[in-house]
């Protein structure tokens, strides 16, 4: 059972605080914040506090969402998964109601948040975290905050940038907000979000690769009609279940073999074994329909090669090459490549491709890192094409100057190269939503359906 729940800002201010059982002394918010801020691990100066720790018999659980700390305390030996899952869920419910989750929106709507908290937990026991169920207990109306000024947060936010087809406000709409015109826009969003992890060896060979995917849904349909989501027919679950071994997997037609997956509680799998269809009555709010994991071979969207070589006394040269290996009608966003350089590096000069406007390379003196960004936002239209065409290649050359002579192997003093990127409208696994069927209420009922794909880097690393 939970003793207290509170939300702290990054600076440690209480934004909401609810004591459910009165068994943890006052001042727990300060104790918690100090502990997190000055966490010490043996042999480390700076360390990150683990999500669960104990101070004087009080257990503190926390998750970071949208730059805020969601914290629960308890004195009993409870399931850590349960509490951390709950904290995450509370954050999601609040977001569903406020439309946007930020310090500002929480402060403006704290009375509504208290209303929610009263119904989510009673005397430390979870009552409900369903946005749908909670609707009948909430009487405050959300005060909207200006979403446009907010930094993009969370996976859904990536859809807000750029693409004109997406209604930008949809993802920041409260489930209980009234539309100005007095009627709700009927729409449903299905997002296929994939995080990919790849490790390339120094010779460019793929050491490990994994895709962690989520099919996320957010429904604004009135009357909660039943929905059928059809996935690829050639979809196998459990490695070894099929004898198929297909290299074409990432380009579509081949079979997709998932290692494993799990489903939201509203999902019924009655016909899943027959035709790979999920049926569900989507509750209000945002929720993951299905999480999946895949280690089957796939084509990584970027090839990364990196090289560091000594070039005479107190000098070295770095070459990083990236090649985009996805179809040419697709654009990647916010690509950042980082590489830790030897500690004794004092200076770095860069040489970019000719005409590489929009690219910047920088030497971060403080943590001795090289940072190369290829941001779509500043690339002009023509140059954009050079980045996205399949097989297009970009190279960064850097000349390093050292303070002292290198000893031993220079490749052991630097690297690995890591890369982050976002590729909208692309997924690496080949998993697809073939169709989205909404049980018809009438022949004129034709709500908006948005099926969106996005691929993100999780741990994308090339070794030296």
């Amino acid at each position, binding site marked *: 059972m939970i003793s207290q729940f509170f939300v702290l800002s990054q*600076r440690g*201010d209480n934004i909401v605080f609810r004591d459910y*059982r009165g*068994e943890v002394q006052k001042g727990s918010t300060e104790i918690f914040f100090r502990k997190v801020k000055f966490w010490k*691990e043996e*042999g*480390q100066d700076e*360390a*990150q506090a*683990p*999500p*669960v720790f104990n101070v004087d*018999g009080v257990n503190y659980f926390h998750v970071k*969402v949208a730059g805020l700390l969601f914290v629960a305390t308890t004195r*009993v*030996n409870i*399931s*850590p*998964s349960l509490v*951390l*899952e*709950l904290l*995450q869920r509370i954050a999601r419910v609040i977001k569903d109601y406020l439309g946007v989750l930020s310090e*500002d929106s929480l402060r*403006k709507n*704290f*009375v509504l948040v208290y209303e929610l908290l*009263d119904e989510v937990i*009673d*005397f430390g026991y*979870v*009552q*409900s*975290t369903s946005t749908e169920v909670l609707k*009948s*207990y909430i*009487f*405050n109306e959300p005060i909207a905050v200006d979403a446009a000024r907010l930094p993009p947060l969370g996976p859904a936010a990536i859809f807000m940038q750029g693409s004109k087809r997406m209604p930008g406000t949809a993802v920041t709409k409260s489930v209980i907000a009234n539309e100005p015109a007095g009627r709700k826009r009927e729409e449903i969003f299905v997002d296929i979000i994939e995080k990919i992890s790849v*490790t390339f060896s120094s010779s460019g060979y793929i050491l490990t690769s*994994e895709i*962690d995917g989520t099919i996320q849904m957010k429904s604004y349909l009135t009357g909660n009609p039943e929905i059928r989501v059809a996935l690829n027919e050639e979809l196998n679950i459990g490695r070894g279940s099929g004898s198929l071994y297909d290299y074409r997997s990432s380009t579509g037609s081949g079979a997709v073999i998932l*290692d*494993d*997956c*799990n*489903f*939201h509680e509203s999902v019924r799998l009655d016909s899943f074994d027959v035709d790979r269809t999920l049926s569900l009555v989507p509750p209000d709010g945002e929720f*993951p329909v299905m*999480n*999946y*994991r895949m280690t089957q071979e796939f084509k990584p969207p970027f090839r990364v090669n990196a090289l560091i070589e000594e070039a005479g006394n107190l000098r070295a040269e770095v070459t990083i090459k990236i090649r985009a290996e996805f179809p040419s009608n697709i654009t990647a966003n916010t690509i950042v490549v980082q590489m830790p350089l030897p*500690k004794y590096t004092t200076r770095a000069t860069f040489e970019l491709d000719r005409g590489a406007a929009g690219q910047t390379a920088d030497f971060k003196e403080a943590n001795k890192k090289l940072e190369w960004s290829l941001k779509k936002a500043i690339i002009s239209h023509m140059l954009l094409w050079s980045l996205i065409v399949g097989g297009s290649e970009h190279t960064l050359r850097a000349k390093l100057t050292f303070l002292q002579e290198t000893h*031993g192997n220079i490749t*052991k003093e*630097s*690297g*690995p190269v890591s890369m982050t990127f976002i590729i909208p409208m692309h997924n690496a696994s080949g998993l697809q939503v073939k169709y989205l069927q909404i049980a018809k209420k009438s022949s004129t009922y034709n709500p908006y359906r948005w099926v969106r794909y996005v691929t993100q880097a*999780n*741990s994308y*690393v090339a070794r030296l």
Partner: protein
Amino acid sequence: MAPPAQSHRSPSPSQPSGKGEVSDLKSQLRQLAGSRAPGVDDSKRELFKKVISYMTIGIDVSSLFGEMVMCSATSDIVLKKMCYLYVGNYAKVNPDLALLTINFLQRDCKDQDPMIRGLALRSLCSLRVANLVEYLVGPLGSGLKDSNSYVRMVAVIGVLKLYHISSSTCMDADFPAILKHLMLNDPDTQVLANCLSALQEIWTAEASKSEEASRERDALLSKPVIYYLLNRIKEFSEWPQCLVLELVAKYVPSDSNEIFDIMNLLEDRLQHANGAVVLATIKVFLQLTLSMTDVHQQVYERIKAPLLTLVSSGSPEQSYAVLSHLHLLVMRAPVLFSSDYKHFYCQYNESFYVKKLKLEMLTVVANESNTYEIVTELCEYAANVDIPIARESIRAVGKIALQQYDVNAIVDRLLQFLEMEKDYVTAETLVLVKDLLRKYPQWSQDCIAVVGNISSKNVQEPKAKAALIWMLGEYSQDMQDAPYILESLAENWDDEHSPEVRLHLLTAVMKCFFKRPPETQKALGAALAAGLGDFHQDVHDRALFYYRLLQFNVSTAERVVNPPKQAVSVFADSQSSEIKDRIFDEFNSLSVVYQKIIVFQCSRSRPMTRTSS
């Protein structure tokens, strides 16, 4: 508009200091209390919001209690809710004033709207004032019988709240019996779940006082109750499912058929997106099959994939909680996970605590077929710029070397670390080489050749320096410079701050002396003299002991200080298997994350008063 709450720890002129604003609010509330003017509810809302926001940032607004209660005569539900929240927070420190609220709360408990009835009942039970409990029994009794499930749900938790304020009142009213009846008959699953939570808490607390209570507590684990809950489990929402599963994990089935029935019934819970449900299910599976070795092993195979999926989906915090449990299972049955080692490779953006768990898992799953790959991967981390992880990785390589039979390749890798010439890498490696030599003396030639090239000046960390000195003493016949290195160390005795290093130095000089007496004589003299004058008790005592031993008889001294040694076959494990088993029994709890058994205080035993400081 509520003022954005600023930090009350960094006062600024614009920030509410408390006093002035509170008295301001007081007079404003007074004005509104009797007013029936149109729009008065809106003004009240704004004022109430201000009060609540002050309360949140820690300003004491308890002095407004009377005014707040006066303003609570309203039909506006938003206002009512804010008022309930306020009253719940301050009734405890204002027991006399709390009496004022009883009236309107009791009236609201009879309201037509079930929502109001429920909210009022919840607030009434949350007052936490002992002398008001008599007012709770009536409304609770009717709340439990209410036709609306929301009111019943609130009433059930209300009974538990009453129990915590006054257990005798709760028991005298025979509420637990009513809860038991509701648990087995109520159509609403949340009511049922709340009954289960409340009864578990009440019977556990009462069990020490009465035998009947302890029988009742055990009855929750009886076959009829468990089957009743299991049969309805799919109607429950995810959180009560966890509650039921937690209970089922404690149930002892009568035969294996029962075990398989339960497992078949719960099989699909392993595909739930909520990690808490999956872990609770896994606990059931593991506990039920403890005595069936084969099936237990199959359970491990079955739960691998869902656990790995949970680790990679969800937030880093959630995945850490799951990974801690995976870690426990891997430690328990490394053989079953030896082909999954790639899942335990670290990702560059993971936090230290996650990487540490993964390194430990990689260490234990290493076997003849995967060691080469695992050690290669670990060597990558050892060269990493992330120093704490580099250290942990080197330790991991060393541990793998100590548990393997074929250490040939690993020794080479370790020695390569020494050639990297990074201080912390050298330090960690030296400690490992020492342990390795104690287990595999046959490698001494190769190791000593490399270690001999290390200058003791480049080794600063006490543990590493002690290891180097140990090797100098142990292998002084093979290391040409040993007596002279030891001599220079002994001469600079006062520069050595670590008593551990000084102790090792004494012993090493002694050992060296027995092997190469003429060359070591000077070092021995210096070390013993310095040791006798040492401020550290242990160092002083050891020096004195050696001195007297040598005085008595040199060959006896040699037998004591440098007897022929047997290779160490197994290094003691840091954690006893008994503790490991107990942690396993507490699967899906904090013990797993902390990796230790913690005696948790029962919340009942703590007084409900808050400290006034």
